[in-house]
């Protein structure tokens, strides 16, 4: 989450004092924020060397792992909250990862680029794959190996027996609660196993 306000909106979903696991956290900014502002503790999981170093610099506990290999190192329900922000679209085994998130955490929070945001729809309608601020890549060089929409995730969550407790879009640093599938470039879901 490079967008500070977006990060704060997501941080607001995390109950104070939570034990948090942040998957694919980047530079550890969010956990450092949660630690400082919401008295949280926990770990971040990263694969990238530069991000591991950045987390170390922040004094955030970081475990260098490849998420594609699963979360076997973590026991069931061993965290209050598992965060999976802006990583789902990079993963090969998205559905398995989602189930793992729900296994390890009592609550899961995910965010990902919403492909159904209207500028994307306009560009696709015009016959081209969208290139936007949230999806800045050309179709041939994108690291996002899959694209999905706000509405798609609701279906996937249901299919996996996950209960969405809160959901909204983020656009321009603000929460979008009306027509998020159309009006927001980022989708955010908070869910549990019910």
């Amino acid at each position, binding site marked *: 989450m490079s967008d500070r306000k977006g990060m704060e909106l997501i941080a607001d979903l995390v109950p104070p004092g939570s*034990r948090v696991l942040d998957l694919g956290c980047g530079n550890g900014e969010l956990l450092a924020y949660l630690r400082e502002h919401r008295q949280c503790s926990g*770990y971040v999981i990263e694969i990238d*060397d530069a991000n*591991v*170093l950045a*987390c*170390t*610099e922040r*004094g955030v*506990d*970081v*475990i*260098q*792992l490849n998420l594609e290999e699963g979360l076997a*190192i*973590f*026991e069931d329900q*061993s965290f209050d909250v598992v965060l999976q922000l802006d990583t789902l679209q990079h993963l090969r085994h998205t559905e398995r990862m989602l189930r793992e998130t729900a296994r390890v955490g009592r609550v899961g929070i995910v965010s990902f680029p919403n492909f159904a945001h209207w500028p994307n729809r306009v560009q696709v309608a015009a016959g081209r794959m969208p290139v936007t601020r949230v999806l800045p890549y050309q179709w041939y060089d994108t690291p996002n190996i899959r694209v999905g929409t706000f509405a798609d995730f609701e279906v996937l969550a249901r299919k996996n027996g996950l209960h969405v407790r809160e959901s909204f879009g983020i656009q321009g640093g603000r929460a979008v609660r009306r027509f998020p599938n159309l009006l927001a470039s980022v989708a955010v879901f908070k869910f549990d196993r019910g």
Partner: protein
Amino acid sequence: MGSVGHVQPQSIHFAEPLPLKSGSTLRDYTLVYETYGTLNAARDNAVLVCHALNASHHVAGTYDGQPKSEGWWDNLVGPGKPLDTNRFFVIGVNNPGSCFGSTGPMQIDPATDQPYGAHFPVVTVEDWVDAQARLLDRLGIRQLAAVLGGSLGGMQALSWSLRYPDRLRHCIAVATAPNLSAQNIAFNEVARRAIITDPEFHGGHYYAYGTVPKRGLRVARMIGHITYLSDDSMEAKFGRTMKGAVLGYSTQDIEFEIESYLRYQGDKFSEYFDANTYLLITRALDYFDPAREHGGSLTAAFAGARCKFQLVSFTTDWRFSPARSREIVKALLDNRLSVSYAEIDAPHGHDAFLLDDSRYHGVLRQRFANIADEVRA
């Protein structure tokens, strides 16, 4: 980044017997150690560096008049280096049973007035940690800022967190394992058999015969050395490079560069290392298994740990593989302890922990900087 410069080993004699895990005791022993940097007024900026199989208390710096005598972790320890001696007081200590000055099998057993030889008691990682703790008592250090070790040294660092949970703030364990695998014990056993079956070994009492089981030591070192390197790094360094221009069609002469290299390493090692020490230290490796006393549960073993942990492994290290470090990470996570883990994609195998890969040293540099801030060193 500089060197700590010329250093001098010191020694302390301990008259109080050291009870050993085996039930035996080491009566009356000496520990040789070196220190770098300055102990602060609060006496809380000390970092203990534990050595592995063939190293010693000589971690950093050089000896006066011996320009090639750099300590074994000189690339990590010194002013401005990742373990910065401008901020930390660093201690290297030679473990009992070793052959670099602390009481070991080459020295006189006060009970018999003969060299200990094969009678030197079997020492374990836990015994070493107890001996190190006594050294700290003498130096007036109640709590270490950190204990750092790689490989067998990493096992000592882990053991510190279990035996003296309140005497260290951070445990930094590199390229290590919660115990040795069968394959690892097998390599150690081959090395030991090479030494024990050398006719010059004389049941471990070769000092009395004026002999040295060099053949055994050479083979032990050769096999050890192979396991410290990765297949890729050996391929890159030696490949199938021949020693001569034409094939000799000899079964006994050196044909390949790798043979020449291993023989050289074996020869060099056999000149300075003690055979009984090799047996003792490989046994200490074999015996280390903190989970054993907890029904095989590493999670239960770490239940009493209090310090913060940093683990590092190297992807091409097949002797102490990343999977083994992840077992430790898991046990720490299960206990909700503070742990960070870096898995460095370095090509050099187990040896990587002694090299200065920038990602590896970057993580340690940052970690030690945080620790220094924590203790206001």
